[in-house]
């Protein structure tokens, strides 16, 4: 009996969002058709490119790494009730600080250099997350708006640095002026896992962090308190939790993880800071986390799936001539469908609770009249 309920709930919890993504792809097919492509051919080529070839598979993982890291931060922030849309900006700042460290101390031994570069990236992103966190906690400033604004600021800051202070001296010497930094030394780079592919050891770091975030959120007091704040703010206040502290902490951690994603893109993939290092991962990571049920471990397969989607969509341009903006269309649809489907899941679970109480009442057992189900997640 116990097992059956569990199974059914798991089925609903995962089945509904998967169905939602499927529906989003169906609606996406309509736009692919409008774009003059055969949707089936386009989707097949998308997933074949991303999952069916050795190169595609490795690139999918390369894209999944920042998605996972950003997604983990989103899990923490959203679970604490902070809708952090600023991962893109936090990632840029993390990429800047991480690169700056790696460029400033090229003489350090490799393990230290990498470790401290990561630390610098984490701190940079964390500080950038701290701003909206503290503004929300103490002045009740809407964090969605501040994070969106900070994204734009970070982007300009990156341009500013790449055209000035951090521009590759060679670019300046040759007068080409391409907005990118000098490349980091060999010692600062993450090792590549297989020859002729960009897949790097950052994958393991991301997966280990997913486990750590899971433990943090579900096996520690801090995590419990953060989730309590997110689930019911007033009850958390009443329960004596210092809610402001946890609101800020969640943003600091979320920013830090996004910053780490920025650094990993530099030390694992590009080996230098360049224009567009964040590449929209800050937004896609939100989508990945939502699809992963805002669960750190669920975000692992979800990040992989969206990595495939991103890479496949990039290839659409070449394979079937559909502009890569298509990936935004699909992502937007996925968010809209997944967030909407939440209600169906909730209603289903509520119905089960109602039926259970009805039976209890029939059997003459006292049961509460009404028990509105709390949000399964992010509310």
């Amino acid at each position, binding site marked *: 009996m116990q097992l059956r309920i569990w199974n059914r709930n798991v089925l609903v919890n995962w089945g509904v969002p998967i169905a939602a993504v499927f529906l989003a792809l169906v609606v996406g097919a309509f*736009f692919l058709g*409008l*774009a*003059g492509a055969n949707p089936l051919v386009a989707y097949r080529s998308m997933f074949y490119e991303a999952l069916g070839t050795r190169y595609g598979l490795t690139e999918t993982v390369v894209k999944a790494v920042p998605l996972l890291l950003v997604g983990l931060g989103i899990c923490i922030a959203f679970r604490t009730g902070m*809708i952090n*849309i600023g991962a893109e900006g936090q990632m840029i700042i993390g990429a800047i600080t991480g690169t700056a460290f790696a460029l400033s101390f090229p003489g350090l031994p490799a393990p230290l250099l990498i470790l401290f570069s990561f630390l610098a990236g984490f701190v940079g992103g964390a500080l950038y997350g701290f701003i909206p966190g503290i*503004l929300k906690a103490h*002045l*009740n*400033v*809407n964090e*969605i*708006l*501040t994070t*969106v*604004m*900070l994204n*734009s*600021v970070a982007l*300009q*800051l990156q*341009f*500013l640095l790449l*055209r*000035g202070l951090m521009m590759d001296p060679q670019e300046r010497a040759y007068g080409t002026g391409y907005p990118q930094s000098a490349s980091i030394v060999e010692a600062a780079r993450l090792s590549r896992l297989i020859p002729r592919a960009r897949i790097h050891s950052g994958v393991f770091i991301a997966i280990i962090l997913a486990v750590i975030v899971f433990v943090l959120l579900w096996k520690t007091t801090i995590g419990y308190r953060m989730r309590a704040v997110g689930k019911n703010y007033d009850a958390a206040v009443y329960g004596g939790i210092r809610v402001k502290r946890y609101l800020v902490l969640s943003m600091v951690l979320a920013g830090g993880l996004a910053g780490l994603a920025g650094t990993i893109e530099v030390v694992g993939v590009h080996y230098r800071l360049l224009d567009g290092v964040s590449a929209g991962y800050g*937004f896609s990571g*939100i*989508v990945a986390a*939502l699809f992963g049920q805002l669960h750190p471990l669920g975000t692992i397969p979800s990040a992989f799936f969206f990595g495939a989607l991103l890479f496949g969509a990039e290839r659409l341009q070449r394979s079937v001539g*559909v*502009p890569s*903006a*298509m*990936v*935004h*269309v*699909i*992502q*937007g*649809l*996925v*968010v*809209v469908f997944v*967030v*909407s*489907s*939440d*209600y*169906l899941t909730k209603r289903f679970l509520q119905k089960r609770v109602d039926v259970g109480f009805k039976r209890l009442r029939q059997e003459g057992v006292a049961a509460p009249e*009404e028990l*509105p189900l709390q949000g399964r997640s*992010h*509310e």
Partner: protein
Amino acid sequence: MSEFFQATVLLGLLTAGVRLATPFLFAGLGEMLSQRSGVLNLGVEGIMLIGAFVSFFVAFESGNLYLGLLAAILAGAFMGLLTAFVSVTMKAVQGISGIGIHILGLGLSGLFFRLTMGSISTMRGFPRLAIPILKDIPVLGRVLFNQNWMVYAALLLVPISWAVIYKTTFGLKVRSVGENPHAADSLGISVTRVRYICVVIGSIMASIAGAFLTIGQHEAAFVNNIAAGRGFIAVALVYFAKWNPLGVLAGAFLFSMIDAFQLRIQIIDIGIPYEIPVMLPYIVTIVVLALSTRGRVLGPTALTKPFVRGVHT
């Protein structure tokens, strides 16, 4: 630097400021209506992008600017229905679903721009329409009464919104649905219908704001991501305005003047990198938000809370 403060320059700055306030007014007043009914429409930026592209595309192909505007209105209504369906009927978390709508709008406008036009084309937008007599008032005449008709329409919408919200039955319904949907429901007001209407009207206005960015300009053109965060600033503006149309007017001018100012320092070279003035509006938005939430005025009580009969949240 000294020429910067000359009268003619200042006059130009003010004129540009009034013009640039238009998209903030359309989108901000629309967002205010939506929020007054209890729905946070965060997709404004994406809807603006769609409005900007659709209006320009239709106007460019047909040669008729009004047809372009009509297309933007239809597209805005469609996006509004989608937004309302997601946040009212499906009771989605509005902060997140709005971001979904934004990404969708960004994608759709970018995708169809690449597919249909591909490169940047330009055309003449709505011409200036000087208002007789009024245009001859010194300073004010040039700044206020020598703009195109969309600017006048946006300014007229301020008193109209005020009257609708505070002086009509519909406005009363909207406010009651946003403050206490359960009470409104018990009085026979359809919370769902009121919210749908407000979200759709708000989205149409956002789409018109987008259209202004293309066909409302003297030299109309569409480029990717043309809204550049103005939609989000419009949402921020509603908080700053404390959900009051006159506040929206003040906020729209504050931000449009900053916008005009930063565009101006980008053009005249005063020795600072252009990224710094570009950052200015965003930073000011954050500062203004931080300062404006200090007061005791809170927004509509039911803002972002989906309505379920019998379940009080």
